[in-house]
């Protein structure tokens, strides 16, 4: 569905992506996780034809993004990081323009618009100007817009950035719902819990390179199941254990203040890259 082979991108002296290869099968949600500047947005920009790669190839649903640009673009919907809606136009008009950009007929647009606005719970706001919507509503509208032409692939670039926790969870529920319809989703995020909750596989990206790629469960299991955070010589130290009992036993033998918690993807990322995600 999404196939990337030896993709590289240079910006003058900066190498943003270094020889990336990746395959995302139909219906999978892949989370592309990395700190700011790791190359997440650059990857999405190349895959969506917004930026040219320096080397390598990529195809969407079998269409090469360089050679069959227009067909490749028809395969995906994009929710970029920045809100890029027409603020002066209404919700309905934004969707209508998008439909026309993708060659949909007016009757088809009307039907799909109604369906999607219902789906993202914005039907009652269809005649509101976008500038009058809240941040969460705008995000939901961007997702609806990206789905207008019924794409096989959905690119979500930090879809919940800047939203509060409750709205973020609402967006997650929406993404889960989309995922159930066998849409392939490529999600970039630096929210660990977002990747953990939504993704079937997670790719760790650091300094333009994919460090590792696996299911969230396997990535976590490599570290252990339980973690102890403690302060030693003014430095935070984290120790990993396969069971809660072994973690408790360690603590009973070492008289320090500690926090016992479940291992998460952040631990895996830290172990692999030596860095925090954010």
């Amino acid at each position, binding site marked *: 569905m999404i196939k990337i082979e030896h993709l590289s991108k240079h910006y003058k002296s900066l190498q943003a992506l270094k020889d990336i290869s990746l395959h995302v099968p139909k219906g999978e949600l892949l989370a592309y996780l990395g700190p700011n500047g790791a190359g997440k947005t650059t990857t999405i920009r190349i895959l969506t*034809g*917004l930026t040219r790669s320096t080397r390598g190839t990529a195809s969407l649903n079998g269409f090469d993004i360089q050679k069959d640009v227009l067909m490749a673009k028809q395969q995906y919907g994009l929710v970029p990081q920045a809100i*890029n*809606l027409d603020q*002066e136009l209404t919700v309905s008009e934004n969707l209508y*323009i998008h439909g*026309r*950009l*993708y060659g949909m007929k007016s009757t088809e647009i009307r039907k799909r618009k109604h369906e999607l606005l219902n789906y993202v719970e914005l039907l009652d706001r269809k005649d509101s100007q976008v500038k009058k919507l809240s941040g969460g509503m705008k995000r939901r509208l961007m997702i609806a817009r990206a789905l207008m032409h019924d794409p096989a692939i959905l690119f979500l670039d930090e879809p919940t950035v800047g939203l509060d926790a409750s709205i973020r969870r609402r967006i997650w529920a929406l993404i889960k719902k989309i995922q159930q319809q066998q849409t392939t989703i490529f999600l970039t995020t630096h929210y660990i819990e977002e990747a953990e909750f939504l993704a079937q596989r997670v790719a760790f990206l650091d300094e333009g390179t994919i460090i590792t790629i696996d299911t969230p469960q396997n990535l976590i299991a490599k570290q252990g199941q339980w973690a102890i955070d403690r302060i030693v010589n003014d430095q935070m130290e984290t120790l990993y254990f396969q069971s809660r009992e072994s973690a408790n036993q360690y603590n009973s033998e070492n008289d320090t203040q500690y926090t016992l918690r479940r291992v998460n993807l952040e631990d895996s990322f830290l172990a692999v890259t030596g860095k925090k995600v954010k």
Partner: protein
Amino acid sequence: MIQGFTAVYLREMLLLKRRLIKQIPSWSVSPLLYLIAFGYAMGREMIIDGHTYMEFLIPGLMAMSSMTQAFAIATEINVARFYWHIFEEFQAAPVSNVSYVSGEVLAGMTRAFCSVVVILFLGSLFGVRLSLNLYFWAALFLNSFVFASLAVGMAMLVKSHADQGMLTNFIITPMAFLGGTFFPIDRLPVWAQKIIWFLPLSHASDAVRMASFGQQPDLRSYGLLLIIGIAFFFMAILCVEKAKD
């Protein structure tokens, strides 16, 4: 090709429709001030080639206004590009560069024609009646095509709103004052006339003026405007491609 073109054009028209109530007075202010200050107050007694200065001025203002309003599409594009990031939506869509440029150029031309209609109305308030024949509309069509195409290309090359303002200062303002809007170009020294001959607006002003007086315009001006317009249109397509990255 047509799918993207109509969507790009439709978006600009929806925005224009939403702002029309504010836009009409804004299209009227400058021409009205020029008509009062230059046409009514200063040039009341002036006769140029058998026509009152007001009759001379109004076709020039129409050519100038079609230029400035067609070029103003660059500002709309830059707001969409730098402020609202909407240009990305077009870039991500299966829309060819030709479709995008065609949609924006036609939107610029539509704005230009709206502003011309406003000046025609203002002119009628001052009792000026012009011959609105095919040559008249063709000259305005070509002039707005030239400047809308130039605007789309320039909008892709600039890096900020400030650059856009600079372009207007360096391209549009000198053209407006030297392109035959306010005075007959043959009153300038010969060397200056030779330079001004290269300005598309001087050809448009001349053609619009001759046509509106019911005289035969110089058809070479139409040919020249068409060639410049086509060149700018293709340049705009290349600039849209270059805007990636």
